[in-house]
């Protein structure tokens, strides 16, 4: 892949900075513990030594995570505005139908214009490139989820062990109270019968994950069924540019924590107290 002059100067500059950063990081790290110091230093060194690909994703997600979270690097998405790899992967393996009528639409992860995704951060003088870019939206798996609070049957609940907000499609009565309660528009209702539609379209569903039936609400589940098999969520794995980082917030050495430490991140509608766990690097 070609590298232009501007990029080279950026990379070289960051590399220089990376080397300069080692002493202060070492000094800071020493205050924690010797062991974590080593890991922190190498990871940070990797990050700041400025390759376009930085923290390499491990082959498997951490086991026994306490608090799953995701960091989305929108800078990378901006460089590839037409990319829909994460959306395609998610919707394919979860057999999400794509209906012709917008009112029946089901989406687990989708793109929204910047000023719609972050209305509070929007103003007239944001850099053009950012202002007209798309942000990637999905269920935020909030720490204080209002959808869970309102569900009358606990068809959606927050898992205590890892913070994931789950769905039980056997129990959902389709009252759509959770849709009313979600401040992010993350949830979709099955107005139609998905299996019948897929059959009519001649699309054979992926066998490992059931479709849902009509009359239930669905949303992203952070690929709970893949995490149970020690696989990364489909969107994370499908992204060709490493824009999605997924990991355990409870582990200070996890890549999500490092990204959050080293970059300024924003979340959607933080003032509502939902504690969303999807962070955006803008």
């Amino acid at each position: 892949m070609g590298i232009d002059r501007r990029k080279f100067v950026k990379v070289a500059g960051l590399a220089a900075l990376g080397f300069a950063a080692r002493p202060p990081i070492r000094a800071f790290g020493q205050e924690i513990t010797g062991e974590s110091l080593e890991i922190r230093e190498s990871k940070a060194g990797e990050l700041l030594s400025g390759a376009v690909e930085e923290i390499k994703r491990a082959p498997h997600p951490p086991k026994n995570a306490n608090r799953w979270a995701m960091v989305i690097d929108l800078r990378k998405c901006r460089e590839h505005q037409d990319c829909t790899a994460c959306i395609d992967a998610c919707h394919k393996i979860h057999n999400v139908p794509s209906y012709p009528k917008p009112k029946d639409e089901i989406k687990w992860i989708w793109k929204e214009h910047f000023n719609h995704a972050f209305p509070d951060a929007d103003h007239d003088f944001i850099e053009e490139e950012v202002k007209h870019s798309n942000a990637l939206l999905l269920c935020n798996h909030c720490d204080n989820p209002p959808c869970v609070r309102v569900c009358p049957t606990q068809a959606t609940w927050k898992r205590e062990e890892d913070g994931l907000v789950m769905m039980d499609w056997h129990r959902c009565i389709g009252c759509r109270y959770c849709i009313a309660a979600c401040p992010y528009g993350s949830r979709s209702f099955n107005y139609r019968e998905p299996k019948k539609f897929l059959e009519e379209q001649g699309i054979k569903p992926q066998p490992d994950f059931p479709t849902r039936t009509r009359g239930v609400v669905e949303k992203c589940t952070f690929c709970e069924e893949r995490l149970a098999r020690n696989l990364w969520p489909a969107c994370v794995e499908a992204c060709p540019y490493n824009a999605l980082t997924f990991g355990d917030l409870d582990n200070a050495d996890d890549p999500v924590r490092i990204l959050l430490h080293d970059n300024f991140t924003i979340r959607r509608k933080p003032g509502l107290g939902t504690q969303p766990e999807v962070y955006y690097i803008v």
Partner: protein
Amino acid sequence: MIEKALQGGKSYWTLIIILLAVIGVGFLAYLRQFAEGLTVTGLSRDVSWGLYIAQFTFLVGVAASAVMVVLPYYLHNYKLFGKLTVLGEFLAIAACIMCMTFIFVDMGQPFRIPNVFIYATPHSVMFWDTVAIGGYLFLNILISRVVLGSEHKGIAPPKWIKPFIIISIPWAISIHTVTAFLYSGLAARPFWMTAVMAPRFLASAFSSGPALLIILCLILRKYTKFDPGREPIQRLAVIVTYAMAINVFLILMEIFTAAYSGIPEHLDHFRYMFFGMEDAQGVMRTNLVPWMWTSSILAVISLVLLLVPKFRAREGLLALACITVFFSLWIDKGMGMIVTGFTPNPVHTVTPYAPTLIESLITLAVWGMGALIVTLLYKVALTMRKEVEPVRYRD
């Protein structure tokens, strides 16, 4: 007692047959919806509650309004309402059943509704709403059955019914408060998240419900031998007047807070309702505008007719006032409140909503079912009363 509903003249049976026809057509429409899913409605990913939930919200208010005749009569011995309490309670029964039916037709998986009780969830307001409305239905059935039965036998109702009657008063307030809580606790919907939601609900309930009761009494006076008397209707009219005035006042309070603060998240909903807003494609969406202005004009007309004593005293104008109150609030609470809560959506785009034919037929059928229940129950009450003079409850 119920067999009294089968004794009637030609006009009675004509009404019954018309209502059954309306219900039949709507039932067929529901079979279509049950087969295909809620896609046959105008609901969308953004506007996920529409006509059905709007009717439910409005009818919970009508159900609660029985308290406006029960409270004065039982708590304050206001004898004027003696003939009306059973009618109020029967209206509440019909309204509660209509509420439950609207919920049933709105659910994605209606046969899983028992899950709400099997997996009872105290932190969900919807759970408490089912308890409240179910309990209120039970209370009204029990109370009206016992009181009417005693009346028929010419004796005073048994003493043990009094606690149930007393409980039904705060319970009526609570059913509508809990329904308001469904909306007013949601951080996601700034249009609904206002402390004034529950008081507004109560004010509109206590104006639309008694207004309907007045209309029903006037109809009964015209077509049957039943006459509640002029005074009780006038007293009810005063209640409607105060309640409507408070309701309109509260709406104006809401408009002020949104308009003066200018916060887009709050103001945009009012803008959409009264002036329209552009959707994501740049098309101006104004489908609620004519409804909301109609509702506002009707509200003003009704207040003029109600506040001026000379107008209120003339029963023809009073009937007109009650009709305008009813329709104004039906629009405001139904189409105005529910759909607007979702428009604009959480990402601040506008998705318009309009009910489909199937949705409207089903809605009409449920109203028809409510009208049928009211017809049957009122027939029972009136037929029994013809046989005996109503006995005042004495403790």
